[in-house]
């Protein structure tokens, strides 16, 4: 069964450094998402992406964050200058469409980001 793949599974970085989290969505999917979960808290929506542009973003998704689909298969989340509070599990998801039968979001296993 097709899966959403995320790499790396764990990323350790120093505060102030840039990180790029990578995701390979399911191949025929058109809608892409990033969520994050700070330890002990809810899974929170960050951003959705469709047709090569951001369709929605949350308050969390400030100027330090950006997303890109550089080559038609990868979907990346960049954090420009990491802060301690960016430490979280980041989940990528994709869906095939918006209709009832296609709007299921499929998730990757996540990347645990640790900012030291």
């Amino acid at each position, binding site marked *: 069964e097709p899966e959403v793949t995320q790499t790396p599974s764990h990323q350790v970085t120093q505060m102030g450094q840039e990180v790029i989290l990578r995701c390979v969505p399911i191949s025929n999917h058109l809608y892409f998402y990033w969520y994050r979960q700070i330890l002990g808290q*809810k*899974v929170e929506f960050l951003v959705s992406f469709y047709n090569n542009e951001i369709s929605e973003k949350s308050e969390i998704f400030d100027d330090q964050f950006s997303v890109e689909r550089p080559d038609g298969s990868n979907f990346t989340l960049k954090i420009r200058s990491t802060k301690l509070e960016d430490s979280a599990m980041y989940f990528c998801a994709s869906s095939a469409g918006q209709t009832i039968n296609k709007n*299921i979001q499929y*998730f*990757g296993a*996540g990347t645990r980001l640790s900012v030291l």
Partner: protein
Amino acid sequence: AQTVTQSQPEMSVQEAETVTLSCTYDTSESDYYLFWYKQPPSRQMILVIRQEAYKQQNATENRFSVNFQKAAKSFSLKISDSQLGDAAMYFCAYRSYEKSSGDKLTFGTGTRLAVRP
């Protein structure tokens, strides 16, 4: 804004028994979707079951069924004949039906289910 509440941080069930996980939500919308996702340790979240709010009939998927009470804004998950492989974190999630509200999922905090052999 919509909120989703899962009041049971942890639950435990004996193998082969039945367990019910609770979820309540708050919304002013009349049409929406509700989901239960399962996340085994170190694995991705997978969809367990989905309910469209305009459907009165409760969704079922094999051993998994929901009790959807729209007026009470309650969406509980029942797992029958529990198996060891059901041990996981279970998340309840809400999604608006309206395009103008976007298609993001709003999650609860999760319930960790342990299955005792």
